[in-house]
């Protein structure tokens, strides 16, 4: 297991302009090794909060602590090694003339020796299956591949905590599931993963805890099952539970007993009680 830090955002305030406050007292704790879904409407402050967690943005008020230390006192290189941020749009993150050079940027920036840089790059090219396009320009690749390269570029730093900002937007379900399975695997190795998404089916499938944002604050946290049972939160963040959760909630007032939030779990649970009758 790797050692993953605890991250804590305390009363963060931030405005892109004085009249446009994006964060209004946001609090959030990310425990080492957890898989957190960060949800809420566009403009509720999800990305702004995430960018504070790795020091990309500095709060007007409040602070972010990494294992108890205020991050503004930490060197950027240490932050970059601990916390990786994958941008919503891969094109905001890719600058180099080739995939290989792109992957070398982070390690070089951290001051690693050329042979260490080379080791990191080769390892990641291989684990992401990118060897055949190592010399291609990121701009010439399909969206799905640019997404992959943008994640591979962060992976070269081997961060303990991953901040994923709508990583599956623009991907089909097959590619999205592969990508998320990769992060589920990293999570079992002890990495923390924070997933910003509008896709509640992904949240239910991968996240063990959900933080709901509305108007620049975290207005509720809890396991998905609990969050989806709170009409106040669903209303505040305009969230719609996935169909299977809706079905289970409807069944709760009937004689039918089913549990679970995913198709697989609900299916198992229903059959456990009814298989004999139906078989």
């Amino acid at each position, binding site marked *: 297991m790797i050692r993953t830090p605890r991250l804590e955002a305390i009363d963060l305030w931030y405005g892109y302009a004085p009249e446009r406050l994006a964060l209004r007292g946001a609090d959030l704790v990310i425990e080492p090794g957890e898989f957190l879904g960060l949800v809420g409407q*566009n403009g509720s402050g999800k990305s702004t909060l995430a960018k504070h967690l790795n020091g990309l943005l500095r709060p007007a008020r409040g602070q972010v602590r990494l294992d108890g230390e205020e991050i503004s006192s930490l060197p950027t290189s240490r932050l970059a090694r601990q916390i990786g941020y994958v941008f919503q749009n891969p094109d905001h993150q890719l600058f180099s003339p080739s995939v290989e050079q792109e992957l070398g940027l982070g390690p070089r920036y951290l001051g690693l020796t050329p042979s260490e840089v080379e080791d990191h790059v080769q390892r990641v090219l291989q684990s992401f299956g990118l060897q055949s396009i190592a010399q291609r320009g990121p701009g010439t690749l399909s969206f799905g591949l640019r997404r992959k390269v943008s994640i591979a570029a962060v992976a070269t730093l081997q961060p303990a905590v991953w901040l994923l900002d709508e990583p599956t937007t623009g991907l*089909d379900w097959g*590619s999205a599931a592969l990508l998320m399975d990769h992060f589920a695997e990293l999570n079992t190795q002890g990495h923390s993963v924070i997933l910003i998404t509008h896709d509640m089916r992904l949240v239910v499938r991968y996240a063990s805890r959900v933080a709901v944002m509305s108007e620049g604050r975290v207005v509720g946290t809890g396991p998905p099952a609990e969050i989806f049972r709170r009409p106040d939160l669903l209303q505040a963040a305009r969230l719609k539970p996935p*169909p299977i959760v809706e079905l289970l909630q409807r069944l709760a007032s009937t004689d039918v007993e089913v549990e679970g939030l995913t198709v697989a779990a609900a*299916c198992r649970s229903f059959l456990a009680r009814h298989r004999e009758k139906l078989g």
Partner: protein
Amino acid sequence: MTSLVEVRDLWYAYPALAGAAPEWVLRGVNLQLRIGEVVGLMGATGAGKSTLALALNGSVPQSTGGQVRGEVVIEGLDSKRHPVAELATRVGIVFQDPETQFLQTTVEAEVAFGPENLGLPVAEIEQRVTWALRAVGLSEFRNLTPAHLSGGEQQRVAIASILVMRPRILVLDEPTASLDPRGTVEVLELIRMLRSEHTILLITQDSDALLGLADRVLVLDHGQIVMEGNPSQVFEQVERLGELGLRPPEILEFAHCLNRELGASVFRFTDVEQAVEALRQAEAA
């Protein structure tokens, strides 16, 4: 029913490097869009969905070059012989990211941009803009800056700026992909309203949305249409969809799981209401 759009055995390859063999992105697509239909088009990334969309107003191949075989006929017009500007008054295309389409500083100017370029009289432009903004529910937003609107509102401005050209055919290329749930609902509601007067091709990864909305669903894979039928017919084939990289509606996935485990087709429901009913009956039996 008469077809407004007729695609016959369409093959297309983007321009290849000198000496390289063409890579066919569309490989023998046949498609008909009939008056008043909403047709859902799904497919993994790279399947050719957007290329097909661009072929419907002639941008492919007129703007892109490359090699083309077969034909696209829009309301009787061959797309190779009529300029994109002319075809665009018949087929309006809306893309995923509205911001990338905005050029003007007010909603009104944005929506008026197309008709102004057609050289229409001022009074008619005014009338059309008023109508289009009302159609998408944004009359109050006329003087605002598109950049200050929410994602759903921006997408509705983009749709208004297409409606204003009065096309009978609308092609919406993943219009909800970058929207939050609220914006998605806004845009889907709008599509529901527009269906009475338009023929709509809706490209999306959201099978749950197509279930209650589309008359037909087509699935494109490597440039070929590999599945076609009404939404429940197509979405019942849960495993096949999975192989194609697509996610079926969750309720159908649930029915499929139950049936697979039971080894028999016991449950056939396509929405939450039907599922509640079917499961209660099973419980009572």
